[in-house]
């Protein structure tokens, strides 16, 4: 597969780039200054992941069922409106969203989780709707004609045929989520943003990078993890990856 080949190439280039960067940083003495923050990195990374996991899990728990609901015939009328509102939501800048959440929920983790939840919800919801709408109508017709109940059609036909697109939405959403968590520091929710923003304020590149590099690595790791789930979990007949 061409796309797979390019993906492999990109991954190789990325690894090679990281290695070269590491060597260069070591030579300049930046690496030791990064490693001196090891303790903070581990503590904050855990905080970072908790924020991402909570908001991400909530977004999945709400986005996927909501997407399913919006594609049911009886909600077809409001589906357009809801999708429009959700689309509007994606245009609000993340920082503004976090600021708004803080003005209502105060400071700390709850407003951060809420803002991240809204941010993550949108791509998950949109992809769930798009995935289910992309299931060819003849499949649903055949399923009905063969005597499946609406629930059976959803579970045996619609979801398995939409799951790849739904997972693609979750994959994008979580990668964005992890990359956005650093902003949560601005409203006192902690996370690796603490190192990044403090590093900027103190003009200390070592501290800045100690926050930025793990953030990037986490995003890549989550993306990889969900990619693997996509590869192995989606039935072979509807999995473009295999």
């Amino acid at each position: 597969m061409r796309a797979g080949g390019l993906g492999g190439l990109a991954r190789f280039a990325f690894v090679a780039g990281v290695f070269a960067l590491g060597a260069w940083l070591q030579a300049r003495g930046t690496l030791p200054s990064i490693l001196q923050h090891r303790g903070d990195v581990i503590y904050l990374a855990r905080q970072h992941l908790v924020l991402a996991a909570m908001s991400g899990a909530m977004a999945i728990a709400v986005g996927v069922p909501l997407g399913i609901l919006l594609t049911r015939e009886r909600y077809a009328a409001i589906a357009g409106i809801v999708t429009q509102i959700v689309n509007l939501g994606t245009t609000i800048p993340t920082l503004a969203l976090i600021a708004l959440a803080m003005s209502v929920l105060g400071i700390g983790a709850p407003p951060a989780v809420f803002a991240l939840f809204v941010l993550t919800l949108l791509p998950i919801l949109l992809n769930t709707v798009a995935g289910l709408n992309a299931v060819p109508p003849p499949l649903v017709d055949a399923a009905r004609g063969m005597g499946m109940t609406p629930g059976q059609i959803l579970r045996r036909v619609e979801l398995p045929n939409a799951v790849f697109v739904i997972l693609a939405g979750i994959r994008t959403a979580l990668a964005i989520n992890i990359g956005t968590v650093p902003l949560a520091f601005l409203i006192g929710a902690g996370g690796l943003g603490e190192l990044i923003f403090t590093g900027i304020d103190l003009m200390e590149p070592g501290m800045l990078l100690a926050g930025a590099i793990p953030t990037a690595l986490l995003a890549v790791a989550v993306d990889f993890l969900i990619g693997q789930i996509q590869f192995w979990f989606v039935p072979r007949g509807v999995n473009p990856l295999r």
Partner: protein
Amino acid sequence: MIRLEQVSKQFGPVTAVDRVDMVVPAGAVCVLLGPSGCGKTTTMRMINRLIEPTSGRILVDGRDTATVDQVSLRRSIGYVIQQIGLFPNMTVEDNICVVPDLLGWPRAKARKRAAELLELVNLDPGIFLKRYPKELSGGQAQRVGVVRALAADPPVLLMDEPFGAIDPINREVIQDEFMKLQAELRKTVVFVSHDIDEAVKMATRIAIFRDGRLIQYDTPDRLLAHPIDAFVAEFVGSDRTLKRLRLIRVAEAMMADPPRVTAEETVETAVGRMQDHGHVAIVMVGPRGRARGVVRLDAVREARGLVGEHQEPLPGVVNVKDDLRAAVSQMFTHGVTWLACVDDEGFYRGYITQTGITRMLGATAGEG
């Protein structure tokens, strides 16, 4: 048996199906035919209640479908659609087992059934059971689509232009396979089509629809011989008499038990036999009765000797199982007015003439 009584369907102000009455006898293939938007698909979809009739009754094997739970009604009726509708997330095996699984058959029994059904349509279960639909050709997929509908052995089968999306060559093959299957299984089939040739080939009864009304409901031969009005006549085509050729077998139109000679007989015997029957040619057969050649009266009137020395090769033969279209085609190809008819083994069974065919078409037309 399927009975429709004054069945109508309104979509808002539009009457899609207008007071249709028809009976499909058990074991019959009823083709619903008409231009698009004529109500044929709606009529079919009302039988398994994918569309609810606005008024009227539909009875399947004596049961009013309105009194049966929709889901269990549909599980008892096979359903095949043009887009095939195999579920891409399931293997061929799981696709075939959909209805048996819904009905709660034991898993082993359902899987065994899937393998049997695949064999019925000449697909090797060893190869195809574990394949996914995307790994099948169009023709293979449609075969699976048909056997999937047969999986739980429903007495009734609904087919919505099932062979419409297949290329013409494969379509013929699959139609033939289906006919063979149907001859064995004797399902009651309601089949939507817009192709008159397909209808003539498959149907025991054809129902012609126009603007939601059932215009004519008849056997293919009577429909072609006696279209009820100008619309039907135009729809079945100006070549409808030629289409009727497909409906009649050579065996029905040929003169059976014909005179014959063997290679060892004398030419005089041959001439005498031709004159007895008033024929201008006679077929020479081999020792066991296979058609070998022909002796023509003009060529041998003055000749002496044995038939074997004067015979000419036969200008084409036709199988008794072929339809008259094949026979006429052979006649035109070889520029002759008669053909020897042989069976599968090549034994000489009779002869067929252009006049005989004309008379045959006239006779069946006259019955109406």
